[in-house]
Each structure stands twice: as C-alpha cells, then as structure tokens.
C-alpha cells in the first residue's frame, strides 16, 4: 500500500524551465510545501507533450482594438457573450460584478456621441499589480493581467488603484460556476481576456467573437507583438488611443475614434 512510484520520478526534468514564473510569492510556498511531489510532477507535466499550450509565451502580447465607430449604440452582444462564456450572471444589484460594460459617451463640447465596451485594459504597467499586497494580481508573460484567486485576500486595493473600474469584488456566494472559470466569494475578479480559451489554443475572445458574429466587427483581438498580425498593423496605421493615456500605463486594449 505504500509503494510510491519513486522510480518514475528519477527521469525527465523537462518541466523545470517552465517554473521560471515562480515569483517572490510562489517561492515561499514552494519551499516547504512541494518538496516531495515536485519531481514527480515535472514528469507529469511533461507527459502530455502534445499539449498546444506549453504556457504563456513572453513573445506574445495579447491585445484588443475597439473601434467605436463600428460599435453599435444599443448593442451589447459582447457583454452578453462574456457573461455566457465566463458564467457571470447579469447584474441585478449594485454590488454585482461586471467584467465588461457598455459605455455611452457624449463629448461635452461637441455633443458627439459614441459607445464602446470597457473591460480590463491589460495594462503593461498595471497599477493593480503594483499595489496588490500578496502578488495575487499579476501580469502573465503574454501580457494578460489576472487575479490569482488562490492568493487574493480580498483587500480591494487593486479596485482602488485601477483607473478604469475594470475590477469587481465578489460580494456573495456564487453557485454553478463554469468548470473552466472558477469564481467565488471574497475575491476580486475582472476580464481574463478569456485566458482559458487562449491557453487551449483558440485565438479569439468570446466578446470579439460575438461582435463579429453580430456583424459589427468592432473588436479586433490579436497579438500586438506580432508585426504581421492584423491588430498590430491597424494599431500602427490608424492612431489608436489608450484610455487615460496621461497615466502612461501602456494598455493592451486600444480604442479607435475617441
């Protein structure tokens, strides 16, 4: 009953380099807790070699370009799609989380109106990450800013720090989460750029997909780092703006026509 498969643990160290992400935070934990299991685990991870997602790549920077000229007033397909994808219920209360919201704006001077979805801007210099005491807010190698909800203590400092109101706090117990998108009470959450899709090898977010399906094509998703990608090309060609550009956060979500 106690024959542990230690022999298997002795070969294969393939996974080691992937642990590069282990930051200050994880290092503390890793030391004591993982000792016996680690090597075995490396093999385990190495095993399904065919996996398309060998982890987030620093070569990539995911981003979105939102064309307010194309975004239809009154349409909120992207918002609905996000909810469906991530199992977020439609907000019925002031306290309910909203990962993405539709904003109607009117220029005070000219009276010109426009509308656009606003979600986490996946800043390259994210204030939410800077302020997070436990390091639960973090930026992945591929530029996606996430909350590690196993480490989030629910202090809401990141909510204070985010200039875009992109973060919500889960104020009550949830049920029927989607297996892909665990969420729960007491933690802060926000748009994940549909990270589960990306890691699975898909290259479009639910919101962008829905917008395209509706024929608006207002949301263009892609790799900002890849000079050949459409998003990179368009960001180069048209002068896309960043929200609150004065803060110099180098957002991953850009806007056209503001």
């Amino acid at each position, binding site marked *: 009953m106690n024959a542990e498969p230690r022999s298997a643990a002795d070969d294969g160290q393939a996974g080691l380099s992937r642990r590069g992400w282990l930051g*200050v*935070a994880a290092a*503390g*934990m890793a030391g004591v807790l993982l000792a016996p299991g680690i090597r075995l685990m490396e093999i385990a991870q190495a095993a399904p070699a065919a996996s398309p997602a060998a982890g987030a790549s620093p070569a990539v920077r995911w981003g979105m370009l939102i064309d307010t000229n194309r975004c239809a007033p009154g349409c909120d397909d992207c918002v609905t799609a996000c909810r469906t994808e991530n199992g977020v219920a439609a*907000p019925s*209360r*002031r*306290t309910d*989380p*909203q990962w993405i*919201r*539709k*904003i*109607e*704006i*009117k*220029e*005070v*001077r000219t009276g010109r109106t426009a509308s656009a979805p*606003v979600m986490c801007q996946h800043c390259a210099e994210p*204030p939410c*990450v*800077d*302020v*997070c*005491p*436990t*390091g*639960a807010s973090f930026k992945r190698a591929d530029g996606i800013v996430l909350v590690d909800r196993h*480490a*989030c*203590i*629910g*202090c*809401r*400092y990141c*909510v*204070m*720090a*985010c*200039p*875009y*109101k992109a*973060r*919500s*706090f*889960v*104020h*009550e*117990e949830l049920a029927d989460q989607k297996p892909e998108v665990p969420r729960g*009470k*007491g*933690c*802060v959450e926000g748009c994940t750029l549909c990270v589960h899709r990306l890691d699975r090898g898909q290259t479009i977010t639910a919101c962008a997909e829905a917008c395209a399906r509706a024929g608006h094509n207002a949301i263009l998703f892609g790799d900002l780092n890849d000079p050949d990608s459409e998003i990179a090309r368009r960001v180069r060609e048209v002068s896309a703006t960043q*929200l*609150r550009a004065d*803060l110099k956060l180098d957002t991953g979500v850009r806007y056209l026509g*503001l």
Partner: protein
Amino acid sequence: MQTPASTRNFWLLAGLGAIVAGAGLAAAHTMELHGHVITGMGNEVVWGLPHVFAIFMIVAASGVLNVASVGSVFGQAAYKPRARLSGLLCLALLAGGLMVLMLDLGRPDRIVVAMTHYNLRSVFAWNVVLYSGMAAIVLVYLWTLFEPALARWTRAAGIAALVWRFVLTTGTGSIFGFLVARQAYQSALLAPLFILLSLAWGLALFLLAQAALLHGAGRRMPDAVRQRLARLLGIFVAASLYLVAVQHMTALYEARRGAFEAFILFGQGGGGRYALLFWAGYVLAGSLLPLLLVFLPRLAGERSLLAAALLVILGAFAWLYVFIVGGQAFPLEIFPGHAVRSSFGDGAVASYFPSLPELLLGVGGLGAAFLIALVGTRLFDMLPRDELAAKGQGA
C-alpha cells in the same frame, strides 16, 4: 495595590471591552458568512467605515507614541513617566486597527497567505512590514523601560521608534498618495499631512486614556504638565488644519482636480454631505472648537482639555470619512471631456450608506484596543508617576 474594588472595576471594564470586541468579531463573522453584500460597500466605494476606523487607529497609534519620543529622545522630564503608557497605547491601537483591516478582507481565512506572500512593490505590503516592525520596536522600547539594566538602550530604542513612526505614517499616507488614478488622493502632501494628523489624534487619545487611568487610581495630572500637553495639542491641531488647507488650495489650482474640490468642499454635484462633514465636523468641531478650548485662558482646565481631546477625535473621524469615502464616491474620469453613462455607475456619484456590521466591526476594533490597553495597564505598572519623577530629579 489591587483592591477588590479595583479588581471588580477591572473585570467590569474588561467585560465591556470584550463585549464590544466580541460584537466586532461577530459582525466580521456575519460579513464573511454572507459576503460583503450586507455591507454598504460596493464596487465604487470599496473601502468604507471599517477603513475609517482602522486608519484612524493606525495613524493614532503612531501619534500616541509621540509622548514617549518626546520623553526618551528629547529628554523632556515631564514626558518620561508617560512613556510606558504611550508605548502600550501604541501597541493596542495598532492591534485594534489591524484587526479591523484583517477582518474586513474578503478572505480573512487567508491571513496566512497575507503573511507569507509579499509583493514588494505594493505600498500595502510595505505597510504590513511597517506595522509589524513598529510593534516589534515598541515592544523592545517598552522592554528597555521596564528592565533597569537596559535603561541605557531606551534612547536608542526611542529614536528607532521615532524614525520608524514617521516612516510608518508616511507609508499609511502613501496608501492613498500612490493611487494615481484617483483625483482625491494623488498628492505629495498626504505624507506630511498624515504625520501631523497623527500627532494631534495620538495626543488626544493619550490624554483621554491617561485621564481615565489616573481617575481610576484617584490621582490627577499635575497642572504644569497639563498646561504643556494642552499647548502641544493646540499646536498639532492648528498645524494639521493649516496643512489640510494647503492641500486643498493646491488642488484647487490644478485644473484637473477642480471638479473634485468643488465636490468635496462645496458639495457641488452631489457632494453635499461630504462638504458638510468637512466644514462642520472637521473644521469647526474637530479643529476650531478644540483650539478655543485649549488656548482661551478663561477655559483652561482639565475638563476643557479633555473635551478638546474628544472633539479632536470626532474631527478625525469626520475628516477620514470625507477623505476615504468622499474620495471614492467621486466618479472616476475615464473619458475626460465626455459625459458618461453605463450600467456600472460610470459618471455618477457613488452612494454609500454604512451598515450595522461595518459599524460594529469598526467599533469592535476600538473595543479590542481598549481591552488590550486595559489588560496591559493591569498587568504592568503603567501609571504615570509624576511625584516620584519630580522628587527623583531633585535628589
């Protein structure tokens, strides 16, 4: 000597403190059980009444230690006999404040995560280091006060505490100062302002605690000492009022922040209650009235000093409420020059009504601090002994 009467009073007060602190714990438990829906906080005002209490206690903790510093570092004889009490109050307030902060977390069960995972870039994480460091330094400081063999280290420990205290209050101020996104906060003046406020609040609390303690022992503060402390309180209150004024003036000059200042100071665009609280609560009741009580010779006396101290503390709560809640209620400006509308409250002033659990939690923190201070004074010799000190110097 512990007489049956003092023992009875001790247990009565301890019971009271325990009930209040217990109510706070119960409130926190309910909050954890139901989630933060049962509080007034939401996704706009994410820090509410608990933070007002917590930050008050933490800032005052740093200020209350001033009395000890003046005695140990600057060698002022009148303050030396008060150093122990001042250290104890500092620890108690720190503990009370941290209790409230911790229990308000969305996941208080993950306290171990908070203690083992540090993001060194986070001001909040620095503060965790600052608070624990503060507690450690004050403990060492108290130790040198109680152990005659260590008396020669008192000054060194006192200086360390003094320096640490300034850093700590700067850190607390910076929690807000670093919030670049918010018009209410981003300001270099916050750090010095918090330091001045801490001196005033801390001294006010110290005066009240000392009065209670001496009253319990049937003694009085010598008049000379009282007059000095009164003057000091006045100076601190006046100086912080001045810096608050400067902070708002500079903000008024900045075009971007004009709207916010109009909101918070003059109640424009729905900021009415914050403006009222600011002027009536902080400026009038929390600053001008205490100044009168302290400086008008006609009013001089123990009672008016204590009344002034009490008012300063009320003013502190008013100011913090305006600062913390008012600052968040004002909408974020994501699209400058645009009128904005959305399902998520964009462009609208956020509403916030504190709920009972929040209030209980905050008061519970005060209760815990009270309990710690009470038990501390019972277990250790904390009473300021002016006669002994005075005689000791003469001899």
